[in-house]
C-alpha cells in the first residue's frame, strides 16, 4: 500500500509519521504508543477515544489520521506538565471521579476543552461538555463535581 507522510504536532512535539491514507486517527495514535486513547465503540458514540485537535474535543475513531496534518493534537499523555498533574487530573483523584478509568482520559480532555473556552462553567455546561463521554461506572456525579472543583481551583490560581 502507498504510504503518506503525516507531519503533526502531538503533545507539543512535532512528529513525521508514515500512515496509510485510510487509517483512522485512533489507530495511528495507539500504534504510536498513545495508549491513553481508548477504543470503546469505533462509531463515535462513546467518547473514550477523545483527543483535542487544535483545542477542540473530537472522537479520534471518526477522523482520518490524514485530517490532522499540520494540526496540534493533545492526548491525555500530554496533559500533565513534567509530571505535575493538571488541576482536572488532581480533581478527578480527589473526588473519586475515576473508577475503572477507561472513559477517564476522554472525559478529562473534554473537560479541558470546556475550561479552556469557558473557565467558569455552570453545572449544566459541564454536563453538556461531558455528554459525549459515556461512563458505565460513576453515574457522572463525581466527574461533574471534579470538573467544577478544577475550574474553581484554576480560577484561584489565575487570581481575580
Amino acid at each position, binding site marked *: 500500500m502507498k504510504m503518506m507522510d503525516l507531519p503533526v504536532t502531538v503533545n507539543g512535539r512535532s512528529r513525521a509519521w508514515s500512515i496509510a491514507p485510510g487509517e483512522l486517527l485512533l489507530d495511528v495514535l495507539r500504534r504510536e504508543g498513545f495508549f491513553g486513547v481508548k477504543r470503546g465503540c469505533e462509531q463515535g458514540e462513546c467518547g473514550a477515544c477523545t483527543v483535542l485537535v487544535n483545542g477542540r474535543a473530537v472522537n479520534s475513531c471518526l477522523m482520518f489520521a490524514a485530517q490532522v496534518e499540520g494540526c496540534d493534537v493533545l492526548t491525555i499523555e500530554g496533559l500533565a506538565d513534567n509530571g505535575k498533574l493538571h488541576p482536572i487530573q488532581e480533581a478527578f483523584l480527589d473526588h473519586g471521579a475515576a473508577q475503572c478509568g477507561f472513559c477517564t482520559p476522554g472525559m478529562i480532555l473534554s473537560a479541558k476543552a470546556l475550561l479552556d473556552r469557558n473557565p467558569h462553567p455552570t453545572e449544566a455546561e459541564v454536563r453538556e461538555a461531558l*455528554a459525549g463521554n459515556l461512563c458505565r461506572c460513576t453515574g457522572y456525579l463525581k466527574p461533574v463535581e471534579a470538573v467544577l472543583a478544577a475550574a474553581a481551583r484554576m480560577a484561584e490560581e489565575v487570581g481575580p
Partner: protein
Amino acid sequence: MRERHVVGHNVRKVDGVALVTGGPVFTDDVRIPGMLYGKILPSPHAHAIVKHIHTAKARALAGVRAVLTYRDVPRVPHTTAGQAWPEPSPYDTYLLDSKMRFVGDRVAAVAAESRAIAEEALRLIDVEYDVLPAVIDMEQAMAPGAPVIHDEPDSTKIHDRSRNIAGYILREIGNVEEGFREADYIVEREYRTHRQQHTPLEPHITICWLDPNGRLVIRSSTQVPYHCRRQVAMILQMPVSRVHVIKPRIGGGFGGKQEMLLEDICGALTLASRRPVKMEYTREEEFYMARSRHPQILRMKMGVKRDGAVVASQLTVLATTGAYGSHANTVQGNTGSKVLPLYRAPHMRFECHVVYTNMPVAGAFRGYGCPQGFFAQESLVDEIAEQLGMDPVEFHLQNAIRLGDTDKLSAQLGEGREGLPRLVRSCGLPQCVEKAAAAIGWAEKRRVHNGPRPHLKRGVGMACTMQGSGIAGVDWASAFLKMNEDGSFFLQVGASDVGGGADTVLSQIAAEALGVTLDKIVIASGDTDNTPFDVGAYASSTTIISGGAVKKAAEKVLTQVLAVAAQLLETPMEKLGRGNNEVFTLCECRKAVSMTEIAMHAMYKEKFQIMDGASHFNTDSPPPFCATFAEVEVDTETGQVRVLHLATAVDPGVAVNPMQAEGQVEGAVTQGLGYALTEELLLDGAGRPLNPNFLDYKIFSAMDMPKLTTILVETDEPLGPFGAKSISEVPINGPAPAIANAIYNAVGVRIRKLPIRPEDVLHALHAQAEACATL
C-alpha cells in the same frame, strides 16, 4: 469504635494516577512482537446445524496463520460461568461446535497478520447450514414439540434437556397454602423484565502468547483470573500449571467479565499458530456475543393480615438463559433467596424454571437476579400497602427483616444447592428508610401531584432491597504480605480490581491492620503466577472475603513485626503499640522503633524476611441494605417519565473508603435507571439483535442524569474486616420499583413491565381514561 487512621478515610485510588494520566495499564496497552489478530465467525442463524464447512480458501489467504472449526479442537463440555468448582451451571458449551444455538454463536475462528486480513478470511469461509426452527419466545420453550436446543448427549447438569429446561428450583419455608388461608388480603400480579447488557466501556479483550518455556500466558479483561485458568486448562486439555492468567486494569465488568469468554478460543488460536494472538469484541459483538441480564416473567403473590403483617409470599418465575446455561441456576436462585426474605413472612415459596431459548446468552450481571425479583416484590408491596391504607414506609418498617432475625430461605437455597442460614448481625435498614425519605421530601410530596404545567404530574415512590456479601461457604480468598527494607509491605492478592477500587480498599485494610500509612503498601493483584488464589470479583465478595484474608495475613505479619520490635525495644510484645510507621512502647517513656529499622534488623541481622499469608471464607453472607426513593414527573400527553430526584441510602457496614463507596452507589443507581427506563437489547423474530450500538441502546449520559442523593448509613458487621459488608450491587435493585411506584403515585397507573417506555405509560393512561369514562 476505635479511632482509625486509614480505614474509613477518603484516600485517593492507589492506581489513580496511572488512570488519569492514560498510563498503559489495560489489556490492550501492550505491544507484543509478531502478534496476530483473531476473529470469530458468528452464526447468522439462531438455530442451525453446520452441514458443510470449507476453510480452504480462508487458509490459503496470504497472512492467515490459523483457521479453527469444531473439527480442529477438543470437544470438552464446560460452562463459561466463572464460578467456584464444581460450577453449579450446566456443562453445555463447547469451544467450537457443529450446532449453532443463537445468532452470534461461534462457527469458526481465524488468526491473521492483521484485523483486515482476519475479517477477509471470515468472508472466505464457506458454510452450509441446515437451518432449524428456533425458540425465540421463552413461554414456548417448554411446550410439547418445541425444538430441542441441547440434544447433544455429552452435555451434563441440564435439568431436562428434552423440554429445554436448564434449571429448576422449588423451595418452601412453612406452608404457603396455609399462610394464604390465614391472610385477610391476597394480591397476585405478573411482572416482566427484559434483556439488559453490561456495556463496559472496554469490550472483552484477551491477548495470549507462549512464554519462553512454552506456557500459555493469557492477559485478559477478566473478573475471575483463577477460574479462567482452571477452565482454559480443562478445555485446552493442558495442566493448570501450564497456564498463566494476568488481569491488568479492567475497563468495567459488572458481571459480564465473570465469564471465560474469549480466553479459550484465543488460547486455541495461539496454540495452533504458535504466535501471540489478540481477540477483542467490537461494540456490536459485545452487545450480543457477550452476556446480558436474564429476562424473567415473575408471578408474585402475597398475603397479609389486616394489621399489615405479611403471612405468606410466593414467587413463581420463568426465566431464560438464552442458548447456554451460564449462571442459570444461581442467578435465578438469588431471585428467590435474596428477595423474599426481606419480609418476615412465616410462609414462603419460590419456584423457578430457567429455560433455554435460541437467544443471546444471559449471565452474571450486577444484582444477579435481584433487580428482577425486587421489581416484582416492591411493586406488589406498594399495591398491598395502598389496599391496607398504609404508607409504604410504615409497611416496610413493620415487615422488613431486622437485627437478630434469621433468613431461613437462604439455608435451603444456596449457590445452586443447599445453602446456609443467614443471621442478621448488622442492620441499618430503618435508618436508610428514614434518611432517604427525608431527602426526597416524602411526607410533603406524597400528596402533591401538580407539576409546573397541567399535563405534568409528579409523584414519589420507594423500594427497599438487600443483597449478600460473598457466597456463604463457597467464596474464599487468600493474601500474602512481605516486608521490604524501607518498612513498606508488598501485598499480593488474587482479588480482581475491575474498576471498583478493590486494590485501594485492600491496601487500606492492610495499612490499618499493620499501623502504617497507605503509601507503605504496594499491591499486586489478579495474577495467577504472582498472587495467591481468590475466587474473583463477584457476589459483592471482595471487601468482606478478600479483605478478610488481607486482615488475617496482616495480623500474622504484625505478630512477626512486634516480635522483632520487642527485641529492639527490650519490651514484651503485649506492651507495644503501632501506628504511623513505627512500633512504640505503651509506657510513659514511649520508646519507638521505625518499621524501617525493624525490617533492616530482621533482614540483615536476624536473616529472615517478615512475611506471611492467610486464606479466608465466611459461613454467612451478611446482607447490605438499601432504601431507594424516587421523585418522577410524568408527561400525560406523551407518556414520558422524567426522574427528578433519586435518593439512595445504603447500609454497607463500615465504608472502608466512603468516597469510593458513594461512587459504587452512584454507578449502580445509574445502571438501575437505565434498566428501569431506557435500556433493552431488542431482537427480531429470528433472534437477530436490532440495536447493538450506543445510538440505539441508550445508557444514561451526563446530561440525562437526575439529581442523585447518596447516603451511607454505617453499621458494624462482626463478620467483616473492620466492620465492612459490601455495597457494589445492592443499590442497582431499587430504581425500577421505586420509579414504577412513583409513576403510580403521580398518575395512578401501574406499569408492570420493564423498561418503562413512554408508549406503555401512555397506553396505560388511555386505558385508565377509558375505564373512567365507562363507569
